[in-house]
């Protein structure tokens, strides 16, 4: 694919991507966690970063957030160079991950209030009430965050990520630890939010049905490199498989598209 950024959408054409990555690299000594990836994501698109453990998904997301400094390459988000000008874009982005905690002893409402202030949210009470209702977390607003179940924490993390109504929402396994009913509701909330706000979603997930339902662009990573990209249906067709689950397994196991596997 070379250094040219891969573009979002089935037609592969983007007038103005909100995320553009060129030849991005992150090396830890001899280990190449991310090894020269390039892609772009259009405004309003939902893009999945897929790959097995250690493929480079979280590393890529961390570099987009400026949490991790790249070894090389360029990142432009909303037209700004990251990490150099990350503070110009961080107020317009947010991130949710079940693997990043909030202060355990603070209540849910306290945690959300602190982050709302950090993001400069206006009318904090109204915003919290809306999110509490939408994500069904208002019942435990007064409970310490540390006392919540994993599923409840995931919903609170998502509420934190939606506080500032981000233009770009990065999600690491957004429905991990959730029961099927709640997970389905979360997906509806995410699609509603995207459709209503025109936000761009970039998510790392191991849930292939979720990817099929939410995403219009998929970037498959293996050993820090992009090995396949396209719309979910396009990939399913290219690999001759019935769903993304099978495509994922093919790619994770290094089977090229068109290969016949006994």
């Amino acid at each position, binding site marked *: 694919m070379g250094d040219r950024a891969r573009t979002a959408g089935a037609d592969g054409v983007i007038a103005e991507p909100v995320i553009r990555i060129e030849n991005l690299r992150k090396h830890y000594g001899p280990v190449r966690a991310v090894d020269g990836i390039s892609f772009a994501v259009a405004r309003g698109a939902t893009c999945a970063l897929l790959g097995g453990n250690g493929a480079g998904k*979280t590393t890529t997301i*961390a570099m987009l957030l400026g949490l*991790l400094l790249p070894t090389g390459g360029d990142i432009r988000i909303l037209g700004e160079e990251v990490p150099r000008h990350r503070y110009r874009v*961080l107020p317009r982005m947010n991130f949710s991950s079940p693997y990043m905690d909030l*202060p355990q002893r*603070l209540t849910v409402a*306290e945690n959300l209030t*602190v982050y709302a202030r*950090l993001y400069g949210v206006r009318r904090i009470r109204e915003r919290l009430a809306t999110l509490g209702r939408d994500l069904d977390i208002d019942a435990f607003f007064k409970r310490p965050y540390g006392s919540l179940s994993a599923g409840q924490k995931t919903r609170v993390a998502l509420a934190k990520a939606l506080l500032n109504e981000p233009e770009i929402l990065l999600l690491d396994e957004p429905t991990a630890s959730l029961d099927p009913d709640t997970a389905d509701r979360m997906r509806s909330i995410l699609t509603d939010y995207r459709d209503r706000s025109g936000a761009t979603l970039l998510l790392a997930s191991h849930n292939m049905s979720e990817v099929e339902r939410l995403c219009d662009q998929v970037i498959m990573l293996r050993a820090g490199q992009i090995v396949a990209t396209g719309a979910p249906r396009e990939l399913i067709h290219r690999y001759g498989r019935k769903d993304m689950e099978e495509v994922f397994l093919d790619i994770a196991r290094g089977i090229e598209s068109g290969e016949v596997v006994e």
Partner: protein
Amino acid sequence: MRLISPQRIGALALRYLYLLRGSWIRVVELAYWPTVQMILWGFITQYLAGHSDLLNQATGLLLSAVLLWDILFRSQLGLSVVFFEELHSRNLGQLFISPLQPIELILSLMLVSLARTLIGVGFAVLLAIPFYSFNLFQLGPPLAGFFLNLLLMGWAIGLLVSALVLRYGMGAESIAWAAIFALAPLCGIYYPIATLPDWLHPLSWALPASHVFEGMRAVLLQHTFRLDFLLYALLLNVAYLGLGIGVFLAAVHKARERGALLQSGE
């Protein structure tokens, strides 16, 4: 250069206020050690007063020293411990993906450290009045200068300790408790710097706290206010605080290179 936002600094300070509000034990803990120290040294003072001309001349010499020392200790510990709180709760990553800048994090840590010091030492200072008829405010206006300098030195050490923990992980946490005590013998808290061997004098005078404690003794024993002590301490503090901030920011930068902000925690 992006502007520093008081709103974001306040937001983080609010987080610690919530933490204190949620646990009265934490509030009691803030005042506990300074109070115990004050009570202990108060009795020692009472005992020694009958046996020492020096202590007879200057009542409250030891109590002033112990309370001023606690300002230094609490301000350092207040900053470090509050930073460790972020590491323990694995919240640092969340903070660094928010619009909060590292310098704003530092300023909020300082703000919270000031509040913790005022609560902790303030309680002991007030309690000393009915307990031993000792009022730290007898030091007069110089007390403000002593307080400021000890606070600044505590912050400088607190930032250096926090940077070390960010670099080497929570295993280095014990340094937070040990660092200040390593400097204590050199600061001349309870004795003049002249008591120390000559070869230690340059080291001792390189510490802002040494100038503060000498200044305190000048007020209590000679009844003179030595502005030179305060100014030296302030100059040194500007340098150390600059160093502390620089090292902390460098540690954050290094952590972002190593990916440590993703995994920081217990």
